[in-house]
């Protein structure tokens, strides 16, 4: 658990630093971000077990001297992010023995997380938030649904069945909210596709649609959808239904 606490050395105002922070937080890590200035460390005289150093001009010799001392004292492991040139520099300025991983820009978050996952502890559950995938061809609706659910869940959006399949190849989710009526591949078709694939077969699917005719509902039921929700329900109720779905799932 403690290993989940990670320090990031970099300027928060930088797009990249803040993006990486976001990305890691989405994976369930708690990150303390510290600016690469000596004064900024007055509060943090002991470093976390893992420190991510985002290389930039601000990380100069003077800072590195001070920081290296801290690293040795706290016996931290370092992950360095930067361009090739910066990575080479890092090897000379920072305690090279403590560098356990180098990430070259552009950063592949997935790989970074995979590595972190190994470095921390394999069996730790990283995602404390449930992850949902919403599939809807109508992006207006798609974004509205995402907004309703974002308070409690990490929500991925796909605006077509094809995109949903692509996304599911890379991301794991706990639940899929599927629209019924979509061009090219409609809801049931997507669901059939999902059930043929090993890694997506067991993901529960809830239909969230404005189609309320009997045939559609029957078809969804025959495909073993977990629930059939109407978009006309008040948002609060939709969220409540999904909450209760997870609750019963946890109990079951």
């Amino acid at each position, binding site marked *: 658990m403690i290993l989940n606490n990670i320090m990031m050395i970099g300027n928060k105002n930088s*797009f990249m630093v803040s993006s990486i922070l*976001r990305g890691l937080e989405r994976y369930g890590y708690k990150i303390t971000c510290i600016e690469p200035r000596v004064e900024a460390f007055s509060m943090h005289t002991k470093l976390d077990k893992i420190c991510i150093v985002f290389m930039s001009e601000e990380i100069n010799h003077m800072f590195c001297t001070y920081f290296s001392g801290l690293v040795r004292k706290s016996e931290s492991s370092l992950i360095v992010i930067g361009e090739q040139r910066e990575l080479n520099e890092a090897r000379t300025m920072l305690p090279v023995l403590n560098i356990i991983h180098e990430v070259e820009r*552009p950063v592949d978050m997935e790989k970074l997380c995979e590595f972190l996952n190994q470095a921390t502890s394999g069996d730790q559950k990283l995602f404390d938030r449930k992850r949902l995938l919403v599939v809807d061809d109508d992006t*207006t609706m798609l974004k509205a649904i995402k907004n309703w659910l974002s308070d409690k869940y990490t929500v991925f959006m*796909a*605006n077509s069945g094809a995109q949903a399949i692509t996304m599911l190849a890379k991301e794991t989710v706990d639940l899929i909210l599927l629209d019924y009526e979509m061009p090219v591949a409609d809801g049931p078709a997507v669901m059939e596709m999902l059930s043929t694939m090993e890694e997506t077969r067991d993901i529960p699917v809830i239909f969230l649609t404005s189609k309320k005719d009997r045939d559609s509902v029957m078809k969804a039921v025959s495909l073993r959808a977990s629930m059939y929700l109407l978009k006309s329900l008040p948002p609060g109720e939709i969220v409540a239904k999904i909450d209760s779905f997870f609750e019963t799932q946890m109990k079951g």
Partner: protein
Amino acid sequence: MAEYKDKTEAMTKEYTDFIAENRHKVNQLLNRVLWLSILVGPALAIGILFGVFTDISYATCILTSMMILGMANIHYLMVKNNPDSQVVTYFSLIFIEAIVVFMCVSHIGIYLTYFIVPLLSLLFCDRKVYIITSVFCFVSMILCNILIAPFAVIQTADPEMGAVGWFFSMTSGFVIEYTCMFLAGLAVNSLINSHLKTVYNNISEIQEQTELKQEAESASRAKSSFLANMSHEIRTPINAVLGMNEMILRESKDENILTYSRNIRGASRSLLGLINDILDFSKIEAGKLEIIPTEYAFSSMINDIVNLNRPRMEDKGLEFVLDVDKSIPEKLFGDEIRIKQVITNLLSNAAKYTDKGSVTLKITGIKAGEDVVSLHMSVKDTGIGIKREEMYKLFEAFERLDEKRNRTVEGTGLGIAITSQLLAYMDSQLQVESEYGVGSEFYFDINQHVLSWVPMGDISQALQMAAAEGEKYRESFRAPDARILVVDDAVMNLSVIKGLLKNTQIQIDTAESGFVCLECMREHDYDLVFLDHRMPRMDGIETMKKIVGLPSYWNKKVPVIALTANALSGAKEVYLNAGFTDYLAKPVDPVALENMLITYLPPEKITRVMEEKHDDAANLPVWLYQIEQIDPELGLAHCGNLQVYMDTLKDYARKMPEGLEEIRRLFEIEEWRGYTIKVHALKSTSALIGAMQLSRTAEDMENAGNTSNADLIRRGTPLLLENYERLGQDLAAYFEEAEVDEEDDERPEIGSSELKEALEAINMMADSFDYDGIKEVLDSLKGYKIPEEEKDRYTRLQEAVEDVDWEKIKEIVR
């Protein structure tokens, strides 16, 4: 009022005491009269016999007796009919004189007069009359003897005696005898006199008392019925005030007006509370209050109590502690409403007199019998407490304690009086322990029948969850296809209900009497009818009887809800027996009204929406209300919050041209499958932003597409497209304006390295499909001016992000 009551009570008591005390006296008196007549009666008889057998003629004796009896009768009648005793006295006096003179002149029964005169005088019970009569008799007797003497000498056989001798011999005996008789009579007279006087006085006093009591009773009855009527009359205008005010609360966006309006609501509610108190009190006084036990769920009662009282405590910053024994059985039998009233009274009292600290409601239960549980309920506060010397005042109606200190605390002083009376009705007793300045504890034990010993469980937890749920969302609904009828003779009440239901879009017909109601119901089919109970000429219950006779009622079995201002326990049974489906108390509570409609309207006509958060509704931009195709509040409800709504509207406007083109193209090439999917999406998004009319048209087209009804599609699509385009343009106009404004300002141009970094970040996040992250980066980019050569890429990127097109995003960023 209290004065009246005290007087009446005191009088009643005096009256009964008096009767008890005097019954003895009257009995004693009657006894004496009896003894007297036993003594006097034989004396009278001996006198008469003596007269008869000595020397006087038999007939005259009889005549005299009869005259005496007749005179006594006349005297009796006169006393009875004419209470003016003076006239009676003189009249009787003349009679007696006549008799005495007659007897003396005829020289009969001279001895008889010895008895008769005092006896007669006794009848008048007046000493003066007695003395005058006696002296008069005495004088006339002597005069008679003087007059008779010469003839008597001739008549008797003894001539030597002479007239003077005869006179003295006759008179000397007579004087002695007469004086003795007179003195004895006087004694008897004064004895009877004094006693009779008391009796007369007593009787008149009793009469007076009875009259006063009747007066006071009828005044008290008049007061009670006046109060009952007045409180009904007062409730009707308060109903209007609360209702109209609720509409101000809903429709006004001005924070000042809302504050005033909330104050009106608070004041009206407390006024209503006072009236209910007074009504209850007058019912208790009139002995009309009934305890009506029913089956009830204990936990739901506690739930109601907490929901009712918690806000008051929280407003005052008091901590409300609930400590309820988990093992109390859930299903009980008793008068839930009255118990609720008792606890609520105690709690609100506690809240009133506590400025800081906490109020604790503690309930424990122990098994007291086979199917009886004894509940110990206590309300404890950390308030100002009660002085020992004022304790006794607590249970008196209209008394306020520590008047000086509590001047500012509102109330009638009826609360505790009602509470203890209610408890007395339920065979319980309110008890108090209090320490001045530290706090008070009110408690009572009450027995309730148990229907099932299953314990109710931990209520505080359930309550907390319920409270959290309640804050999360409150449901409301729309039912534009439902049609209801509201019947009430007060036009104001009709407009209140209409106003309260305005948002639900229900079609509302109104009727001002039972007759109009029946007419309406003959002509139209309604989904629900609200029927007022108190109406002139034909009241709600009579109207209901007639409704049951209507054929249309049986066809559909329309739910009819009674509206009533006298919602008491047991009222429900009364209305259900009369054929009503349910009843609703006036003043109408908006939430209860809506719940009633949700319960009884046909479910297919109801669309549930989430009650918009008040703040969000107030913050809706004014221009939204000017767009005719949109119901902004409905849209807000569908979207959940203002941010989502505004985003959705913007998106809707942005996507309109493309969507319009697509539908038009599919329509023209008559590709119905694609067309149907597109109008289906339009249906959902239009409903999402609150454009219900457009959504319905789209739905019609979708259905036509599903059934391949090309004719209908051809006819309906032009209108659909026209409305869609107009709505999109109307919305776009407002959003573009905002864009132009932003364009003018002087933002720093973004450096190439920063831009590169931003794009790299977007790319990275697109890999993990982090939409919010990308949005954040784009938002921060808004703070910069984008160099001319990158502008096109930037716009395309924005478009792609809005469309959630991951491939396109990555393609652009690369």
